[in-house]
């Protein structure tokens, strides 16, 4: 059940207002496809989805956190430390199959633990999420630098690389994982009591408490989801190159993830948002970066375009709430 948007507005306007990110995605995709022949090649389109998969997965978790009224700045650093931990553990294990298993499980566990720590700081420590995760952003990055001696850790496990680069039905594994997680999280957000409670807390935390919702548990849960997403992304990230850089991996992913969620219509003040919107936001950012390369735009100006898109998205959002 969707809330009525505005009974007094015509149906078309309501439709446009509700589907803004998807319309923007379609328009952008069409414009780029028409204007650039390299862009529209199927291989390029598939590449885009693979390029955005890791930060996209982080954005899925971020959506939960932001809707519940928080923010998680540590997702990129957590990805790095989870990836470094995974590869280091893998290198300690003799059997190549067991090693790949470890490379999958260890980042997940590190991600969950890191997310749980964030959630603990915010719910039990009652530290504002921006500050708490700003702290862990630094802590997790520092840990990854320490364990990797500020360098890159690599493995020579070929199975690991094969898993990371495998392609099913023409679509690479990271894309599959991204889409699968998006489907699962979309259902959780929209059709479970947990998802409803996440929205309620972001919308009115006080009323949620009086309504006997376990506010702390649910808020904690959103950070654990974000940590889980970092863990999954870490596995995909490190397996593709069979190595992970402690300095660069996941750098500024938190910004991409926040940007994607906001472009997708998630409200920065919490309470509103959708996974489908975030997926659209992720793809919009990916297409813009890719198209700029195709058009030979100066690399250093890519951030300018991305920033402008974010600002416009927020402008539209605030104008909508004012009306």
């Amino acid at each position, binding site marked *: *059940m*969707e*809330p*009525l948007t505005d*009974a*007094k507005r015509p149906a078309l306007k309501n439709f446009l207002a509700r589907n803004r990110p998807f319309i923007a995605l379609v328009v952008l995709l069409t414009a780029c496809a028409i204007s650039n022949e390299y862009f529209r090649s199927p291989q390029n389109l598939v590449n885009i989805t693979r390029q955005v998969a890791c930060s996209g997965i982080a954005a899925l978790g971020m959506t939960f956190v932001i809707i519940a009224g928080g923010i998680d700045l540590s997702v990129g650093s957590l990805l790095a430390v989870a990836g470094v931990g995974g590869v280091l553990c893998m290198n300690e294990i003799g059997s190549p199959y067991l090693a790949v298993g470890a490379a999958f499980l260890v980042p997940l566990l590190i991600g969950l633990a890191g997310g749980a720590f964030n959630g603990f700081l915010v719910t039990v420590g009652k530290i504002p999420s921006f500050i708490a995760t700003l702290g862990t952003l630094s802590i997790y990055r520092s840990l990854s630098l320490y364990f990797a001696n500020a360098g890159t850790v690599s493995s020579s496990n070929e199975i690991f690389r094969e898993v990371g680069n495998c392609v099913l039905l023409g679509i690479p594994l990271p894309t599959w994982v991204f889409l699968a997680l998006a489907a699962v999280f979309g*259902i959780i957000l929209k*059709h*479970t*009591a*947990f998802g*409803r*409670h996440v*929205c*309620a807390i972001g*919308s*009115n935390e*006080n*009323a*949620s*408490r*009086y*309504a*006997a*919702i*376990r506010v702390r548990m649910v808020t904690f849960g959103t950070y654990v989801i974000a940590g889980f997403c970092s863990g999954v992304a870490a596995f995909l990230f490190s397996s593709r190159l069979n190595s992970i850089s402690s300095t660069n991996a996941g750098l500024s992913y938190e910004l991409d993830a926040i940007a994607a969620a906001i472009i997708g219509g998630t409200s920065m003040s919490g*309470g*509103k948002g959708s996974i489908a919107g975030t997926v659209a936001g992720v793809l919009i950012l990916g297409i813009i970066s890719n198209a700029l390369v195709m058009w030979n735009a100066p690399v250093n100006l890519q951030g300018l375009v991305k920033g402008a898109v974010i600002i416009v998205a927020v402008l539209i959002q605030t104008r909508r709430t004012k009306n």
Partner: protein
Amino acid sequence: MERALPLPPCENDSLLEIRNLSKSYSGVRVLSNVSFSLKKGTVMGLIGENGAGKSTLIKCLNGVVSPDEGTILFDGKAYTQMTIQKALSLGIVTIPQEFTLAEHLSVRDNIFLGCESKKAGGLFLDHGKMRNTARELLERLGCSVSPDVIAGELNVAQKQMVEIARGLNRRCRLFIMDEPSTVLNSAETEKLFQVIARLREQGVSVIYVSHKLREISAICDAFTVLRDGKYITARETAGTAPREMANLMVGRELKDIYPPKIPLPPPDAECILSLQDVSEETLVKNVTFSLAKGEILGIAGLGGAGRTELAEGIYGIRRFVSGKVFFKGKEIRITSPEEAVKAGIAYIPEDRQKSGTVGEFPLAWNITLVSLAEKYCRMGFIGEKKEESAAEKYIAKFSIKAPSGRIRMNELSGGNQQKGVLAKSLDTAPSLFIFDEPTRGIDINSRSEIYFFIRSLAEKGTACIVISSDLEEIIGLCPRTLVMREGRIAGVLENDHINEKEIMYLATGIQQQENSWNPSQTPNARP
């Protein structure tokens, strides 16, 4: 249309005259052809039910919105619309319900916010001058607050005085006070009235918006009635009884809004809740009482007497630090609302916007907010059909005026929102229902419906606690009431002993009465 055109020319002694003011929001007419005039140095009451157009009229006067049609004559000059700056420069100052003080600044800085005194050619603030002027203004109001105190440390009554002082500093000629007494206790209200009287003597006019008709009688020279966005009448207050005002407001003869009083349960009725010597961290001290099945128990008292704190303790929002709580005969220790709901306790919080509703959610989601996981989910997934039909059921049961359960909560009127809140708690099938100010800011029809609902709940055996600052409500609804003062139970009144005088004596402690309460007569009173 209530008034024929054209109007007589502006009289000399009128400060404000409104002619044929109309305003629509997205096609819905909320003000149509409203006209009235206000003399210099008089206090005019503006009354009307929720949605009568009072707020819109205020917003037209202080420049927050522009009227579609009509003229505002202020001090002989005609304006077709106001802006916030223009209204302020003319001396029209609104004292809003939510105060607009900068909490971190001092009282002095707040009073001079936007019109600071300067010295040294306008380079530096003239703190000394501002402090002296602020002190003079506050003294004029009989307010003993120091100009150097930080605004955030003041209580609401003091903040209100600072707002008024700020208005005076801007050479205010017309104060618009929007329900100023809702946040005040009776002593503070009395003081506000003195200030208003003083303002009137100084030639300042006041538009006093209130639901409380007795206050209108007490303080206003005349009153204007709005109903459904239309001007109904303007009369002198002298010679108009509050009852007549109420009839003018609702537009028909008011029947009794209270159901017949439910009798006290028999002495052998099952005890639902019993508190023994309970204290809470902040306010509640040594409270002992018990509540039987099917009883409606009132809790009266002034603001800050600890009534809400007591209720929140029972509901697990706050912690009791000592004493025992028995629920249905068993000792329980509730530490969170989840546990309270599980045990069968429901609580309707006093602040509907802040604690009772999720305004951005549809009505249906609000109704199922508490019981969602328990009643509407299978394997964690929400059964949306089930949820929707439950919402429809409650919309019909409470006759909530909503097109469907999908309408956003904050688009509904206060009364309909409150009914949604009641539905939310009813859906958990509680055996104890605590209502905290259940009818605050609600129109008279919804209020009556809520009273009948409470009575029917009690008839079916639910134990009800009604916390209210509205004495009429306590008197009209409860066969037994506790009166709290400074965190303690000052007394218990039953049946005929429940009247305004006795409640106020107990609540203020000004004149201690012989207590009409005899524990042996009270059902389930424990020694």
